């Protein structure tokens, strides 16, 4: 018995000694300075991480393909991941990307405020971080932001709704309802605010009437950007508020929700209202052609991905990427240098010209 105890101790001591003899201790490998100036050069052919949110809309699926193809043809190794399991999965994916040694990480965040720890890890490991489409909040560890001008998107949506209503019926008042995106997506509020910058004065002067009274962002949100949630809310609104009143228009933040709203209205057997959208999803473009959905926004994912990849190439070669906005995007800790692409409103009037270059939508709209 005693002998075995000794043997056990001896083994432990040996193991500790072995540990001590490996001597090296920690190394500072993997870090190439850790500065965030954006001037790091890393070898061409490095792995580039792209962390995307849930696979809930066509745009994200398209982005995956574009990133894979674009990065490969630019000579990089793409590492594109979707986080269908929510924020905690995205956190683990970004950590894994850092472990894999990705030199630059493009983040399309589920919740831009909940990735601070991972972004710090990325920075500590010397990786550059680009926020894609959605801003990363409350962290100093984000280098660039590339997106469509989201406030502008909202403005265009608000204006399109007004135009559509006027075209339908020359004078008000118009009955409308408001839908916003998911509250955990920082852009949702920006879209909504942009739209309300146009709509609020008209609500105040009585031209527009939100019959349900649900005018605030909190009341209008659609959890998780989920079509089913929007459809349920629309069902409820129609059943509760529009038994006799007619519904003239609906502000919808994107195409998926717009179609859900239209589905709900059709199911209730009501005349179709003017419904806005965003993203130029195939089904919605068809819907516009069929005269159902009123408008969408063309934020060509190709151009956005293209610019993101251009930024990757610039960072790789040590150049400072092109920036066109250094003031607007304060994330709570720093003002993130941004490159904003202009969105384009698409209605039946310009649908045939808007997608001429688009390989998928082009043929449909011809």
């Amino acid at each position: 018995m005693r002998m075995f105890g000794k043997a056990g101790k001896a083994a432990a001591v040996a193991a500790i000694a072995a540990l001590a003899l490996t001597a090296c201790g920690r190394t500072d490998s993997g870090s190439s300075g850790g500065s965030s100036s954006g001037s790091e050069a890393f070898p061409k052919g490095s792995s580039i991480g792209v962390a995307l949110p849930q696979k809930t809309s066509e745009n994200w699926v398209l982005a995956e393909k574009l990133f894979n193809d674009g990065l490969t043809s630019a000579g990089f190794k793409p590492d594109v991941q979707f986080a269908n399991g929510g924020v905690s999965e995205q956190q683990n994916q970004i950590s894994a990307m850092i472990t894999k040694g990705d030199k630059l990480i493009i983040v399309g965040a589920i919740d831009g405020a909940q990735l601070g720890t991972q972004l710090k890890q990325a920075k500590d490991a010397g990786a550059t971080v680009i926020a894609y489409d959605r801003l990363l909040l409350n962290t100093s560890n984000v280098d660039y932001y590339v997106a469509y001008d989201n406030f502008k998107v909202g403005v265009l949506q608000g204006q399109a709704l007004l135009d559509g209503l006027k075209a339908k019926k020359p004078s008000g008042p118009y009955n409308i309802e408001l839908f916003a995106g998911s509250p955990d997506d920082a852009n949702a509020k920006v879209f909504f605010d942009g739209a309300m910058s146009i709509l609020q004065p008209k609500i105040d002067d009585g031209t527009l009437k939100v019959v349900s009274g649900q005018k605030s962002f909190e009341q209008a949100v659609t959890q998780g950007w989920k079509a089913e949630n929007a459809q349920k809310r629309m069902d409820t609104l129609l059943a509760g508020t529009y038994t006799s009143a007619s519904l003239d228009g609906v502000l919808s933040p994107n195409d998926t929700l717009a179609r859900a709203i239209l589905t709900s209205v059709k199911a209730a057997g009501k005349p179709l209202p003017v419904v806005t959208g965003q993203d130029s999803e195939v089904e919605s473009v068809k819907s516009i052609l069929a005269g159902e959905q009123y408008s969408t926004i063309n934020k060509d994912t190709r151009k956005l991905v293209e610019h993101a990849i251009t930024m990757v190439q610039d960072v790789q070669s040590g150049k400072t990427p092109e920036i066109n906005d250094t003031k607007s995007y304060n994330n709570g800790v720093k003002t993130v240098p941004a490159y904003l692409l202009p969105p384009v409103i698409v209605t039946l009037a310009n649908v045939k010209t808007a997608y001429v270059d688009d390989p998928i939508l082009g043929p449909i709209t011809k």
Partner: protein
Amino acid sequence: MNALKKLFGGNTRQFGMIFALVALVIFFQIFTSGRTLTPGNVINLFNGNSYILILAIGMVLVIIAGHIDLSVGSVAAFVGISVALAIRDWHLPWYVAVLFGLLLGALIGAWQGFWTAYVGIPAFIVTLAGMLLFRGFNQFVGKSNTVPVPEDFQYLGSGYLPEIGPKTGYNNLTILLGLIAVAFVIFSAIRSRRTAQALGAEVQEGWVMVTKLVLVNAAILYATYLFATGRPGTSFPIPGLILAVLVLIYGFISAKTVIGRHIYAVGGNRHAAELSGVQSKKVNFMVMMNMSILAGLAGMIFVGRSTASGPFDGVGWELDAIAAVFIGGAAVTGGVGTVIGSIVGGLVMAVLNNGLQLLGVGADLTQIIKGLVLLAAVAFDVYNKTQGKKSIIGMMMKNFGRSSEIAPDETTSTKEVISKEA
């Protein structure tokens, strides 16, 4: 072969789940070209899963007692947002905020425990209601916004042991912890062997114990080495430390204390427990309450790691925790399960997740693989039980806690010889 059998107590399959874990680690270590066992990745593994593992500790007790808790994700989210708001609006210091969070968890637990234990509504229903209720509360009080928490609170979810003492090239505190763990393992093995011998119970052969100790300690030392040699500024992570402390406490409670015994008794046969003087209502109440306290803690750790609390925190966590518990050998009918087993089960899932991410396998395929692993692990266990062998995991954990199994057919195994000296 015979030697191997002895080493694993007569049945090499006993160690199935630990083998599976080790095999998975080795598999990924090879196929990710050595990126699995790096300091950074091992730290990530603990940081990114500690909250699920903490939930699994509470969940295994709930499941042993014969219940289930579906509300843990929502409770975690509600506690998380409440604490974040309390810090922001009431300017609570972080330790007061943590206490506040634990207290809130206890209150929620008391609510759920009341309905489950004293009103007698099945926990499945109570916690299904709780799942909706506390998700709603989260989004109500947080107005569906994401609320950031200050840096000192983030330490809870993303902090590391500090650098103390001479510059050795290692993190000194981590090394110290590792050595304490080794000493503890050796000491307790020797002590339990001595008492077993003194009581005249069966003991393993000496070389078996030494080999086991060497293997276990080698694993601890290797882990220590990994944690101590990470990037400067990193070391053994705080969530990992919290987890380790909880595993020790709850492992001890479940195996060695009166309340632990009562939980197994109530889950195994409530009527028999009641007729032995166990207050089953109190046990059920405590188990449900404890779960919500741990859910609150998990929520706070997640908020610390995420640097903010969001409206969709904790979605799906209950399923991860429940999966860990069942992979870890617990029975749906209650009465069976161990804390350590659940942690191993949770680690199997975590390593799988992490390895597949390192390999760049998509989220869709990852879910498919995880689903199959869950089914396979439990099916394997069930198959072994119906074959009349002991539950792998149950046997494996014998030294750590308690678990048992039902004999397949009592008429086959009993042979009573009448001894009558009339």
